[in-house]
């Protein structure tokens, strides 16, 4: 970005990192929605618990940054096991969505209420970040750090979706009964996918903590879960990189449109309506269609 003034390029760098964070979150989420066929409406719990675990450790203890960072996916996975244990047995989109929503809202209320431990609605301010990746002076170092972490995670997620495990996951999504018949323990597979998704959502949460250096309970609210669903559907949940595209579109639209109009929600709403009616495979599906023509049209017309 050599042609831009220093302050402007810093802002763009910030946006790019933000896209990376949401990309990782949306792609982890899509392992559950797009590949597992589970409509989780509570993924804010994993993103948020990861972010909070990392933030609280850094503020309250003198634990090394690396450990605080690693704590995020671990805590998120533990919560993923707890929520997943009860949820994966539940069939039916609405039931699954409401159950995961209920768990995540309970966690949100807990964080809000448990002031002495989580600082409640004051949030956590001034989370110390080591100088090497600090964003105080410049976003450049942190950009490379976030990029490396996100790429590694995406690579692992990609391997998972291509593995036998990923293929069974898709089989289950298409036809749970058949998967059962060939001897697949459906609930176990669903649980493992759920926890893997929580793990990577937790990493995205930690990246978020380092980027913002402050946290508020709002990241645990259900609207965060809603946002990540929108990203998945906007980009195309049946395409591996679809959610990344959705995340980029949402972050960019939000930051550019809000500076021109206070009615960006109207724009987003109309875009979503058009996507549902005309491009149900999302923007990613549209591009894939145009490029290769091998996207399976109508593959969303399942029940």
């Amino acid at each position, binding site marked *: 970005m050599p042609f831009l003034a220093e302050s402007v390029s810093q802002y763009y760098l910030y946006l790019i990192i933000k896209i990376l964070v949401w990309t990782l979150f949306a792609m982890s989420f899509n392992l559950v929605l797009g590949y597992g066929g589970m409509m989780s409406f509570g993924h804010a719990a994993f993103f948020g618990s990861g972010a909070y675990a990392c933030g609280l450790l850094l503020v309250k203890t003198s634990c090394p940054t690396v450990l605080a960072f690693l704590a995020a996916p671990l805590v998120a996975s533990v919560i993923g096991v707890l929520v997943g244990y009860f949820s994966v047995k539940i069939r039916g989109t609405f039931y699954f969505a*409401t159950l995961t929503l209920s768990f995540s809202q309970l966690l949100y209320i807990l964080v809000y209420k448990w002031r002495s431990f989580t600082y409640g609605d004051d949030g956590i301010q001034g989370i110390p970040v080591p100088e090497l990746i600090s964003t105080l002076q410049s976003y450049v170092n942190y950009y490379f750090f976030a990029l490396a972490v996100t790429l590694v995670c995406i690579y692992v997620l990609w391997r998972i979706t291509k593995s036998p495990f990923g293929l069974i996951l898709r089989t289950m999504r298409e036809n749970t009964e058949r998967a059962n018949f060939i001897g697949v323990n459906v609930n176990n597979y669903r649980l493992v996918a759920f926890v893997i998704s929580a793990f990577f959502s937790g990493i995205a949460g930690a990246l978020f903590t380092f980027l913002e250096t402050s946290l508020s309970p709002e990241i645990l609210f259900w609207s965060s879960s809603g946002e990540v669903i929108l990203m998945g559907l906007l980009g195309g949940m049946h395409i591996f990189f679809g959610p990344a595209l959705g995340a980029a579109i949402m972050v960019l639209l939000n930051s550019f449109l809000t500076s021109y109009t206070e009615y960006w929600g109207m724009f987003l709403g109309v875009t979503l309506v058009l996507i549902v009616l005309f491009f149900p495979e999302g923007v990613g599906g549209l591009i894939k269609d145009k490029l290769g023509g091998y996207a399976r049209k109508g593959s969303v017309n399942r029940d």
Partner: protein
Amino acid sequence: MDIELSMLAGQFVSGLCRGMILFLMASGLTLVFGVMRVINFAHGSFYMMAAYLAYSLTNLFMASGYGFWIALIVVPLAIGALGGIVEYVLLRRIYHKEHLLQILLTYALIFIFNDSVKLIWGADMRIVRMPPQLSGSITFLGHTSPAYYFFIIGAGLVVAVALWLFLKTTKVGKLMRAAAEQGDMVGLLGYNVGALFTLVFMVATGLAGLAGVVIAPTIRLALGMDILIIIECFLVVLIGGLGNVWGALFAALITGQTYAFGILVLEKYAMAFLFALAALIIIFRPSGLMGKPVQ
């Protein structure tokens, strides 16, 4: 904490009020799900739109003193008509697609409605005057509540009875119940299922409109009141059993009381009890307290 009878009576009355509002909302939501198998995320948006319309109408007819009553009749009809348009233009196109796309579409409507309200009425808080005829107060078991609260409870009861009569005795009502059981069969018998769906959606959004008008004088109208109530309505519908109108009434009353008395324990966070209750019901009794399982 000293607990007196009068305080409990006060909580009971306010819980009953909240329960009735939730019933007005949830009955429509569950009817739409039962007949059309659509989860309408935008149900709360119709309610918010109605509350703002009530604000404009009561102000417009302020001098006559009957502004609120005009709104009470006109707004639910207008919102029902709006619902009909939304069904006819948008929802109709996605009935045969997966639930996810329906959720996305109605979710998109939340954004559109929210910004429409912002565009028309602005982002400031609005207050709807109590109708002067109901500005008094009534003492019940030693606790004095606004008379308007008892009007809300009465309105809820009237709607419950009217809805019962409508679904039990009228031909259209019977068709709606039949469509909830066997939608294809109703079509095979030669009835226009499309028109029936539009009508169901109009009744449901009209009820949401009524809820919006009725609650308006008791709260400050603000953007976001749509999503505040929609999650609660989902929980009520689920606790009562998907598609079950009477379950919704029962669940709404329980929810209202849980909230009213939960406030004494957890203050602002009484919703926690509802989420916990909903989670328990999904895990142990997914058909809801009074429902048959629906897939």
